[in-house]
């Protein structure tokens, strides 16, 4: 059993027990891919009444390496509008890159960070060059070099 499986098993036990408000586990089949739903709880008009679905993909080096986290679209599961979230669900957040990641983070803390990233946002817009990026990107999120310039989020 790899250390990733062991650690994810512990996280799963915790997730089943109690999650913070606005975060719900959808599926966690095996220790490779989990789906979670998040909601923004305060009255931010951009996200009110919406639920967003997150997909976590774990490598066998988790938590040494960050998981791959993206928003996935589905029926009544839109991709949230945010200047750092591309319309294909890829999230530009330093926490999820190799530079910003730390093994003390976990699924719950990532969800909470994303919740607060949405809560604090006031711009109802996509990142610059979204269309071009979405059309041309074939890389996996972890292979993309984001430049984390915005410290206001």
């Amino acid at each position, binding site marked *: 059993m790899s250390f990733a499986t062991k650690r994810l098993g*512990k996280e799963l*036990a915790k997730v089943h027990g109690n999650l913070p408000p606005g975060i719900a586990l959808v599926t966690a089949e095996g220790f490779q891919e989990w789906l979670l739903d998040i909601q923004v709880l305060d009255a931010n008009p951009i996200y009110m009444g919406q639920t967003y679905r997150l997909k976590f993909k774990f490598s066998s080096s988790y938590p*040494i390496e960050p998981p791959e986290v993206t928003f996935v679209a589905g029926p009544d599961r839109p991709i949230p509008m945010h200047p750092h979230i591309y319309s294909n669900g890829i999230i530009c957040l330093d926490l999820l890159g190799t530079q910003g990641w730390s093994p003390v983070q976990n699924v719950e803390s990532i969800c909470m960070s994303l919740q607060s990233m949405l809560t604090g946002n006031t711009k109802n817009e996509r990142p610059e060059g979204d269309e071009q990026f979405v059309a041309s990107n074939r*890389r996996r999120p972890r292979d993309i070099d984001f430049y984390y310039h915005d410290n206001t989020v």
Partner: protein
Amino acid sequence: MSKREALEVSDSTDWLETPLRSVAAVDSALRCQVCKDFYTTPMITSCSHTFCSLCIRRCLNNDGKCPACRTVDQELRLRFNGAVEELVEAFKTARPEIFALAKKSVNSGVTSPKRSREDLQLDDDEKPPPRKRTRSSRITRATQEVYVVDSDLDDGDFVPEEGCVQCPICNKQVKQETINTHIDRGCADEPPTRRNEKSTFPISPSKSLQNLTKRPERLAQLHYSMVKDNALRKKLADLGLPAGGTRQGMERRYTEWVTLWNANCDATHPKGKTELKRELDTWERTQGSRAQATSSLNPGAQIRDRDFDKAAWSTQHDGSFKELIANARSKVRAKAATPDSPSRPTPPLEPPVTPIRGAGNPLKSQGPANVSMMEAGGEEQDEHHPDQQPDAVNVVGMTPFSKSRFFDEPGLSNPTSQAPTSQYSNSIPIFEKEKDIDITTITNPQP
């Protein structure tokens, strides 16, 4: 082992359903933040955060930063946190008892004070033996230490005053006679053990017993850019580890071995080498399955994946490869049979040309098949083309070895196993980028 298995599912949140909710904080404080399990050989960083030895060593190997506060730290500066280990061991023993008691009081509804008193009494009756044991063992250890101090012989830890000088570089207390060699070795000669059991010590019998289980020496990580393939392979073989696989695979294996080994050196009761090897094997198997796990929907992306598993790929496409080899062989044979014929006749036994599934490049029917095959298998192998070409002519005689010749050998010896399609700079091999965090920060584009 079974005990550990049982603890595996335990979590600090278990306490939230019991009346002893406040124990959750105690439980959680005794767990490593990386593996979420109770500390195994806790080590404290220079920023005063504690993690399991193995966890923090893996983290520091990965990015050289403390996982809790992102301060830069080094493996050499880790120190054993004995008090925490003692706490963890005591709590692990007490936990099932306390937990059972807490659960019982929930099940029996409102607990009568007398009943719980009895339970507590029982608990107290049960508890003393282990507690006493640990205390007595500590006492014996303490008396040993007294022996050591009394006999005023040179034991690294216990004679800080006499005959010691402070190293001007690392401020450590070092014996006067060894200070020069200490400085010569860049202050790195003394591994951070709490007990130095290397010194031979004939006086106290308990001490000589400890000498029998001599603490293993720590290994140093390599600067891989300065180690050639063969040297690395030899190092692995010298350690008794598998020396096959790609360059990248060997590097990762060596790193993991050093991590496992050094973490084991920190432990109060180090494991045997065989057990460590088994752990390395488990690690390799769980890490190696990565490429297989990813979907083959986007083959281009899979090949450029830095974890691309060549072994799995070659077994998966074994059939195609064999067919191609047969194809090439029959062509050579046909050519040899009719050397002067201007248009090569197709021999009847030639199988239909099959493209390698998933590789994206349908093979050209022209030319020696092994060339295109190797191109499909991974770009890094083309260095070997010239050597392989003459073989293709004599290919008839090498039937049983052909597969290993074509796939294992070339893969062994190339440092740049990363396809140049990645977004990272083509000139920098990928493992350098990962290891050298500083380089990446410097090369990050400015806005």
